[in-house]
Each structure stands twice: as structure tokens, then as C-alpha cells.
């Protein structure tokens, strides 16, 4: 789906989600939308630039990678103005950004419900086992390696 999206539609969508998240940030974390606006604009801009790079470069990597790397790069100490970027984006609580995402996820629930009813019980059981496996086993690996490397 990623390659089919129109840039204009995406920018509009990100702006709308940005506004919703600013209001959530206000309701849940008591930061006024005016104060958090510059930070939110930076976050939206990073995302759009990441998409732009994906569209320009011939390599077929997910846009998420470019977005992560840009965000990471412009907040490292060596980047000019990084302190300002960190301060402004710091006004946007990351949970305030996650709540709208899961609201959209919820509202799309009914779409796949029909497919779900056709599944057998085995595949449902295994789905939960698979998600448990990836989460719990990587947590165990992290815990063990933290202990061996003496972090805690």
C-alpha cells in the first residue's frame, strides 16, 4: 500500500492527527496546544521528509526507517539546533501520539471481523502463542544479556 499513497493526502492526514494529538496532549498531559505546537510541527515535518526520501531513493526500504533515522540524527548533539528540537519535541508526550493511533486501530476492527469468524480455533491459539513468543523470549534475552554485561 505504501507506494500507492498520494503525498498531498498523507500531509493532510498527518496534520489532522497532529491536531488531535495536540488536544490529547492538553487533556491528558496538561500541555497547552500553543506550547506544544512547534514540537508537533517538527514531528510532522520529520515524518513527511522521511516519506519524501523514501519516494526519491530507488532502494525499497520501509519509510519508518528513514523517519527513525532523521529523528535520531537531528537530535544528536552534533546536529546544529538539536537542543531546541529536543526541547520543543519534549512538549509532546509520546503517549499522546499513541492514543489516536490505537483509536484508528479500534475503529478498523470491524473490517476483519468477518475473516476472523472463518478461522479455526487452532490458528487463533497459535496467534497468541506467536505474539507471546516474540515478546517474552526477546525480553528474556535482553534480561540475560543485561545481567551478563553487568548493566544490572
Amino acid at each position, binding site marked *: *500500500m505504501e507506494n*500507492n*499513497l*498520494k503525498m498531498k493526502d498523507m500531509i*493532510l*492526514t*498527518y496534520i489532522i*492527527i*497532529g491536531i*488531535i494529538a495536540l*488536544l*490529547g496532549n492538553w487533556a491528558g*498531559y496538561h500541555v497547552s496546544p500553543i506550547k506544544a505546537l512547534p514540537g508537533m510541527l517538527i514531528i510532522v515535518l520529520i*515524518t513527511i521528509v*522521511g516519506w519524501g526520501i523514501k519516494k526519491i531513493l530507488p532502494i525499497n526500504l520501509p519509510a*519508518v*526507517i528513514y523517519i*527513525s*533515522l532523521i*529523528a*535520531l*540524527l537531528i*537530535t544528536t548533539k552534533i546536529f546544529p539546533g538539536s537542543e531546541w528540537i*529536543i526541547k520543543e519535541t519534549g512538549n509532546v508526550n*509520546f503517549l499522546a*501520539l*499513541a*492514543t*489516536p*493511533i*490505537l*483509536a*484508528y*486501530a*479500534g*475503529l*478498523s*476492527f470491524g473490517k476483519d*471481523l468477518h475473516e*476472523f469468524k472463518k478461522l479455526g480455533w*487452532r*490458528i487463533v491459539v*497459535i*496467534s*497468541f502463542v*506467536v*505474539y507471546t*513468543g*516474540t*515478546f517474552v523470549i*526477546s*525480553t*528474556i*534475552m*535482553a*534480561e540475560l*544479556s*543485561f545481567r*551478563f554485561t553487568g*548493566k544490572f
Partner: protein
Amino acid sequence: MDAKPSMFSWKVHLFVLVLVCVTELIGVHELGLGIGTITLFPMLYALIIGSIMSIPKLKILKKKEMQISANILGISFMLFIAKLGTMMGPQLMELFKSGIPLLLQEAGHILGTIILGLPIALLIGMKREAIGATFSIDREPNLAIISEKYSSDSAEGRGALGVYVCGTLFGALYLSLLTSIIAKLDIFHPLSLAMGAGVGSGSMMAAVTGTLVTIYPDQADTIAVFSGGANLITTLLGTYICVFISLPLTEFLYNKLNPILGRKHKNEIKNIKT
């Protein structure tokens, strides 16, 4: 696809706006259950109330609006990823110092689905569906890999699609509840759990990270940085490892384990008897 996927519906955005404001105002609550305490917080309410609203029988949303909502979800989590990225920059040295744990947890993410999933799938009587179901967490990129190799109509393809559907519907909610319960056992450090959160799916990762931050508010930033870091590695390496390691390995283990753990077909059992 001929038509561009639509991402615009005032109704959907308005519902999300109301869900966000209402759930943020409700705030954090704890729910004691027999097996442990479950932490409830805004994004979980938004997910649950949203899901109920989209049940087709209630006729609140049209199928088209649910599709639009799914399209928006597909790109919206990138704002969250961008925000996590801005938290990672200042902590980059801290992340590099945890290079070994970061690499090993990644092995856990990749192998975890197979190690736990494949034996259980065979024990409950799945056949080749088990390969598609357990070689990865079966998100979109993984589905593409399976259908390229076996076709989406194959047993392997059906297995992968089944896990995909369950994950889409219940993955975030399930992992959030599981995180609550495991965190309260107090056997893992919050940072280890944070790394575990980097499963490579935007909404599931947001749900697990959100749960952890709600339980350990004083370590919110470090948790975000480490789950962001783990998720970045999973996304970066995921597809390649899936093609070159996970899928061949699952197929190999299936062939080894199926004769031992798998249930025999009725015909085979008859043959043994006679």
C-alpha cells in the same frame, strides 16, 4: 491496485478526536484480577471503545469508513516513530553501550515466534499451516514473503494470514494485558521489557510501550528509547532475516519435528495398525 487508498473521512477523524479527549481525561486505572493486576490507560480504552464502535452489527461505521481507518492507521504510527526517534538521538551513546543486549533481544524477537509457536502448533495438530503461522509475527511484509514463496492460497499462506488477522484484531490489546501481568511479576527489569516491546508492529509496540510507561512512569524516557531502538532494529533487519533465516529455519524444523510431535493422519494410523 488502480484506485489510491482513501484516507479521508471527517466522521472517522471526529470519532478519533472524541475518543482521544475522553480517554485522556479518564486517565490511568488499575484493575485487580485473579491472575494479577491489569493496568488500564487511555490508549487501551481508545482501542477497546473504538473496536466496539466498529462492530458491524451496531451499524455505527460503514465498511468503507473502517477501511479508511485502517489506511490511516497504516501511516499514523509513523508520527509515533518520529517522536521516539527524537528521544533516541540524545541517548545514542546509551544505546550503543547496550549493543550486545540489543542484538540478543533481536535474536529473541526473530526466534521467539518459532521456538514457542512451532512445537505447540504441531502438538495441537496443525500441518503446514504451522510454517506460515510461526515463522514470524506475520505482519504485511511477512505476508508478502510467504505468498511469494508458497502463494497466498497455500497451507503456509493460510497460516500466515490467520495470524495476521488475529494480530490485527487482538494483538495490541493482548500484548498490553500480557505486559501488565508480566511486569507485575517483577522478574524482569523494565528496560528488558522495553526491548521486548520492539516487536516490529507499530500499534503493538505502542501498546506495550504505553503499558510499561504507565507502570514505571519514572523511567518513561529510557523505556521509550529502548523500545524505539529495538523496534528500529526489528524493522531494519526483519525482512532480510525473514527471507534468509526465519523461513528456511522454520521449514527445516517443521520437517524434523513434525514426525515426532505432529499428529498422524487417520490413514497413516490405519497403516500402522495393519
